[in-house]
């Protein structure tokens, strides 16, 4: 299996001087499903942001499906991002109806109308939002907004899915359902990386677990559970 994500000795320093990640070495193969866990503020989101080029590393190299991410020219960033579907921790929904939100990405990447008309309702119904297709995000509950953010990514069927705390506003049953959808996308070929704080999910699924602590990888198990001490020990 070729590597889908590869970080080589990566360090990220924010302008405020905070070192969010130090000397990260990490490889995620194509088709893998991995969890990223760690205490609040210890670098999970920062690691994901590197992969879709929202942040740039101070040192080290970042590769995604063979592209060296920090070196991509501004005009080609869009092409990278079409191959990386992100469920943002803050949702980042457009001020449009649920339907339009999902359709936007598809249209923007040049899919035909026929395809859009097929995929949007599929994605919405998978997360249980078909009856709210004409709701603006502000007329959705937080959990519904989060589900919409997931639907937007699933509809695009990207080869790499990054999900940053995708179940933080969902009840346990809905959380399990969303994780099943991500697992299905994984079975269908997508590489999936999920940052989460939910021990129930991590423990139930028994997948690779990468533990971040103070910006370093302190643990990386192939079929791990949610660590009790989160590397604090």
């Amino acid at each position, binding site marked *: 299996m070729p590597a889908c994500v590869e970080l080589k000795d990566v360090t990220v320093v924010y302008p405020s001087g905070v070192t969010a990640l130090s000397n990260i070495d990490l490889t995620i193969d194509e088709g893998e499903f991995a969890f990223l866990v760690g205490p609040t503020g210890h670098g999970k989101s920062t690691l994901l942001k590197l992969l879709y080029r929202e942040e740039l590393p101070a040192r080290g190299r970042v590769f995604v499906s063979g592209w060296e991410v920090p070196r991509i020219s501004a005009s080609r960033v869009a*092409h990278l991002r079409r191959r990386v579907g992100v469920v943002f921790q803050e949702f980042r929904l457009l001020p449009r109806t649920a339907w339009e939100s999902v359709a936007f990405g598809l249209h923007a990447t040049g899919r035909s109308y026929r395809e859009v008309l097929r995929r949007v309702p599929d994605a919405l119904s998978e997360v249980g939002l078909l009856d709210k297709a004409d709701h603006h995000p502000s007329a959705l509950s937080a959990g519904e907004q989060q589900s919409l953010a997931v639907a937007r990514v699933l509809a695009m069927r990207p080869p790499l899915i990054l999900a940053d705390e995708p179940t933080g506003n969902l009840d346990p049953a809905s959380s399990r359902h969303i994780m099943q959808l991500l697992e299905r996308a994984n079975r269908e070929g997508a590489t999936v990386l999920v940052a989460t704080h939910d021990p129930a999910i991590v423990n139930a699924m028994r997948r690779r677990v990468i533990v971040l602590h103070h910006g370093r990888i302190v643990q990386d198990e192939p079929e791990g559970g949610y660590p009790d001490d989160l590397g604090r020990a």
Partner: protein
Amino acid sequence: MILAALDFICRETVLHLKRERLIAIATVSTVAVLLIVLGSIVLFLADLKTWTGWMTDQLEVCGFFAKDTTREDALKTVDPISAWSEVESVRFVTKEEGWERQKRDYPSIARLEDAIDNPLPDAVQLKIRDPEQSARVAKRLEQVPGIEAVRWGGSLAQSLVRFNRAVNWSGLVVSLLVAVAGILIVHNTVRLALHSRRREVYIMQLVGATRALIAAPFLLEGMLHGLLGAALACCLLVPVHMYLRDLAARSFFPLTPDSALLPFALYLLLAGAVLGFTGSVFSVRRYLRHKPEWHG
């Protein structure tokens, strides 16, 4: 592929136009108000120029032949007068030509055409090399046989000529100033409008839309807002000026003719579109590079 992109851009533009009425209202009304001001200034200056032009034209010394002078006799006087050293040029104005000119300049007269006969005599128009010599030329013209009356400018001539020059010059400066002001203000407005949508622009980029695809609807939107504003300005300025002109014409006070208003309106529309479009171009470029705060 390209067709799909065009179709997408058009749909997005419609979406943009429908959403956030506030931004549409603010942009359109700013452009409209601005073009109304610019337009009024341009028209005012054009009128001022027409007027001072008319005044300096009046500085020509004009000799009217007596009704009983035959045209033949009248025409004979032209060559000798042209030879006078103070005179730059002489134009013979037949009474028909004079009448046509009057009707062209004053539509209210044209409307009376059927009712009254041409009351004008034949005439000669003398352009004087130096307006200060008008008085002397006028006296000399009165002596020419066949000439019944002489009209001439008088002693304010020099001031008027200077004033005319000043108006031309300051008109240029004011128009330029006001155009620069317009660009700046519309630019500010569009930029603020985009500022309030900065997160949207950023999210679109995160989702994988190319910059061109994101920018296009904003540019079209800006252009349409500009056009709409300009159209509003035209709808106000053109009829008002036509009305004023007619009013002024009734008291033989010439303003810019109506025929100049069509190109004026077209230029105004063009200005609106260009203002809206360029304003958007600069702003969108800025916000495509900008990472917004997510809070507040």
